[in-house]
């Protein structure tokens, strides 16, 4: 697992600088004014796409076939991508938190904010990744459109809630509401492992 994470780190460093630039640029945009909260969540949409780009890169370079010749199981290969996505989301969260505290703190508590972020950051990769692991990044591409559409709609809904100050849910309830996206991510992981084990490479 550590070796796979290290390999993805090297690939990201070389191949995916554009993603980092886009994420930083749009998040910075949300920092500029108080009405650009839409872009506050942009990083949480893009990070799962980084992971998909890494899967696609693995397929193009036949790294997935190489792993088949090593002791690394398919289950470990899938788990590493889910873990990497989580790590990137966690690493990015402090940046979003700082922007939130500086510009959007009047929209609710950090816990409520965390709840919105979890929905955006976990639900969509949870929906998308099983398609990618079942069909490959090329054939599973149609799922991107579902993903983008659903993600944009969810961000719009989140922003609307924030701007209306409609944080009618209590902090305690926000924490409980963290469970569904976490459960969806876990179920998605198990499904992806099952699908990837059956896929012929």
């Amino acid at each position, binding site marked *: 697992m550590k070796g796979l994470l290290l390999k993805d780190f090297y690939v990201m460093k070389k191949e995916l600088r554009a993603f980092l630039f886009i994420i930083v640029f749009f998040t910075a945009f949300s920092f500029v004014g108080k009405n650009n909260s839409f872009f506050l969540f942009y990083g949480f949409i893009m990070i799962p796409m980084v992971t998909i780009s890494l899967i696609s890169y693995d397929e193009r370079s036949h790294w997935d076939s190489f792993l088949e010749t090593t002791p690394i*199981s398919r289950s470990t290969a899938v788990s590493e991508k889910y873990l990497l996505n989580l790590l990137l989301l966690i690493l990015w969260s402090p940046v979003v938190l700082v922007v939130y505290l500086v510009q959007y703190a009047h929209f609710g508590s950090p816990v409520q904010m965390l709840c919105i972020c979890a929905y955006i950051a976990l639900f969509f990769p949870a929906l998308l990744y099983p398609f990618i692991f079942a069909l490959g990044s090329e054939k599973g591409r149609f799922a991107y459109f579902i993903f983008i559409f659903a993600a944009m709609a969810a961000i719009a809904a989140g922003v609307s809630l924030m701007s209306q100050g409609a944080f009618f849910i209590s902090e305690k309830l926000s924490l409980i509401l963290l469970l569904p996206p976490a459960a969806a991510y876990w179920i998605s992981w198990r499904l992806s492992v099952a699908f990837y084990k059956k896929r012929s490479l």
Partner: protein
Amino acid sequence: MSNAIETKGLTKRFRDFTLDSLDLALPEGCILGLIGENGAGKTTAIKLLLGILKADSGSAQVLGRDIGPDMGELKEELGVVLDEPGLPEKLTVRQLGKIMPSIYKSWSREDFAAHIRRLELPEDKPYKEFSRGMKMKLGLALALSHRPRLLILDEATSGLDPVVRDSVTDLLLDFTRDEGHSVLISSHIVSDLEKLCDYIAFLHKGRLMLLEEKDILMDEYGLLQCSREEAEAIEPSAIIGRRDNPYGSRLIVRNDALPKGTQTQAVSIEELFIFMVKEDKG
């Protein structure tokens, strides 16, 4: 002597191709060359042995263990180089050297460094800038650095220049100096395997046509050049393949089925393979 690889009736059916009832045996400490034209089933056979594909019927044992879905422990003892080594283009040898110890428990940094030095590979050049020969040499260095007992090479020597092929040959011969080490190497280029292998297997259209020790093969078969009339007089069961030309006939024959005193020339593995394939009506 036990077998490093043993398959019995190994079968895999696809819509337009079947690897049919493969019976293969590679004795420990030996090199087996799996020869076949493109699409003969070599890669399918190797993927079955690695558990990448699931057989429809038959059985296979690798290093004495049944192949199956969970081969993690077994793969610690296998070194594999596929036709396309499958390494990320932007990675360098140095970076791969840091990644691999987390992939193989028995990875040896010293062995890897020694192979890289011996094969004269640059440590900081991205993989995508490597030539085909350099890519294959790196594949071999990676396959050998966790001290495997069995090396499986799929078309790994195809397209290499003679100098690189020679260093690959040296590396493989060094590897099999240890009696517990074995090699399965597939190629459609027969001359690649002729010098290297102890055993030869011919695969054609998904069927194993022949599996024999190379020296026995060279003794058993011969090339006979004669007139057409002389060719007609030879017992048909002695003839493996025949080609007629305006000047006479060229026959690949079974030496022991010829009349005593008949002189034949040594036949090359390549000639034998081509004759057998052309004669095959299957």
